[in-house]
């Protein structure tokens, strides 16, 4: 990866995530929340490359979170194992639903995602014996390869694990966009016909994108589960899906690093605002969002983007 401005910003983000909590421990939780939000937003960022939006990715977020809870119920407490399980569970569900969803584009893709997520939300609410209904499920302190650490140690370990996974995730997405299936994602937006006439299935390309985005949402859910020690059906509610989308747009569909910054900015901004005025966060966010949509449609990405030469020489 050559050191262009974007790489530099990424390194900066990593440094911030790694060092700030050491300076002020009470920021650790906030940053962890931002990270858990960044994952689904990154997933949606990938889908935005194909010009598609989902109003239902909270479903995969919730699946990731509940996987941790259910795994613990079955005495699987290892962090790395639950990470793998959350990833697998959300991707498998993504594959099953994606098999249907990949036929749809635009509003219908977005709406059908919404419908599935609301079904999931209601199931989590109603399958009382498995999910505890609206009580949700508690998450205990996990083990690390068999070691159980003290409460503070565990918190630190989970935080840095999350940071590491986030960086890995960003690097993966950037590599994916350099690969053939990733580069073909853009074709979903511009010209599926040509893709078909290059002998490749637009539907499969889109499905792959959907499954990966589901996986990212799932990992985000796994992190939120550990950071709050409790999961509830709210994690699947549509407003959360919309929040992911906002963060993605906030950062800008053009750059995964930007989306990560978007998540950080989003959460920090929320805390700042909420600590001064009660019940006005959504109002202010709404106004900010309108501003970004109208005057900065490419989000924070505009700040350090290199546009490919758009005019003929």
């Amino acid at each position, binding site marked *: 990866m050559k050191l262009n401005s974007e790489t530099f910003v990424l390194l900066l983000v990593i440094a911030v995530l790694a060092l700030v909590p050491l300076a002020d421990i009470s920021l650790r939780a906030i940053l962890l929340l931002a990270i858990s939000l960044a994952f689904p937003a990154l997933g949606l960022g990938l889908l935005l490359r194909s010009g598609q939006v989902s109003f239902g990715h909270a479903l995969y977020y919730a699946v990731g979170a509940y996987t941790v809870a259910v795994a613990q119920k079955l005495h699987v407490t290892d962090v790395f194992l639950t990470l793998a399980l959350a990833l697998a569970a959300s991707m498998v569900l993504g594959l099953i639903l994606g098999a249907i969803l990949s036929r749809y584009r635009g509003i219908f893709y977005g709406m059908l995602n919404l419908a599935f997520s609301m079904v999931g939300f209601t199931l989590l609410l109603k399958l009382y014996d498995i999910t505890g209904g609206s009580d949700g499920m508690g998450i205990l302190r996990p083990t690390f390869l068999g070691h159980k650490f003290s409460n503070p140690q565990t918190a630190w370990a989970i935080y840095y694990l999350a940071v590491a996974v986030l960086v890995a995730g960003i690097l993966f997405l950037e590599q994916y966009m350099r690969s*053939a299936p990733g580069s073909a994602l853009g074709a979903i937006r*511009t010209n599926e016909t*040509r893709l078909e006439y290059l002998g490749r299935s637009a539907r499969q390309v889109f499905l792959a994108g959907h499954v990966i985005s589901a996986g990212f949402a799932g990992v985000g859910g796994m992190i939120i589960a550990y950071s709050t020690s409790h999961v509830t059906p709210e994690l699947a509610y549509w407003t959360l899906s919309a929040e992911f989308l906002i963060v993605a747009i906030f950062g800008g569909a053009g750059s995964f690093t930007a989306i990560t910054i978007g998540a950080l900015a989003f959460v920090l901004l929320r805390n700042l605002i909420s600590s001064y005025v009660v019940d006005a966060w959504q109002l202010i966010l709404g106004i900010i969002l309108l501003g970004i949509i109208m005057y900065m449609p490419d989000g924070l990405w505009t700040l350090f983007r290199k546009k490919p030469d758009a005019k003929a020489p």
Partner: protein
Amino acid sequence: MTHTPDTTAPILLEASHISVRFGGVTAADDINLQVRQSEVLGVIGSNGSGKSTFLNLCTGYIRAAAGEIRFQGRPITHLSPREITRLGIARAFQHPQLFLDKTVLQSIVLGVACRNRFWSLGTVFQPGYRAKADAIVRTFGLGDYADTLNSALPEGVKKLSDIAIAMALEPSLLLLDEPTSSVSSANKFIIMDTLMPILRNSGVTTIIVEHDMEIVERYMDRVVAWDSGQIIAEGSFSDIMRNEDVRQRVTG
């Protein structure tokens, strides 16, 4: 520029008794046509004569009501465009189908990747693919536009870019739909003069649907004249132009 057709060359594509109709219009009526290895076949006909239909039939875009199309001896009548493409039939479009968010080079590299190992996390700009793509860009004289977004290309260049992407698939049969339509008469020869050598050197068999008689006369080895879903004449340009019908119904 035209070559005398090699009648001994093996048959690459064979359409037998192909019929298809849309509503009342007969687009193809019991068509029989053979295309031989490495020839450049021109399909002419008035608008709505069904000449473009033939390309759509060959690529599986529309299904024949009756008859069969064989490619390299293998029936392709019921295959999807994707499957047919995978067998080695590539096409360009009258209205170029381009990835408007990609540069010319990016699109061609993606084309090369589609032809080779597509499902891999490897960078699409890997040396192997890159070299192939660069070669294509060079031969098509697209060097100046390599890093220009397709959306920003002038019309004529769009056409070339569209064909270049098709060539990235290294097809054994190339289908071109009016490659010089909506191009200034000055540029149309430039396009064809870039294109033909490439086709000749690569030895790719080509079917060109064309309504511009100058182009047909200059570049086609063999011509079939199409009218209301039927082939009314077949042979070299000069041959079929002796045919009264053709002069009237096709070129007239």
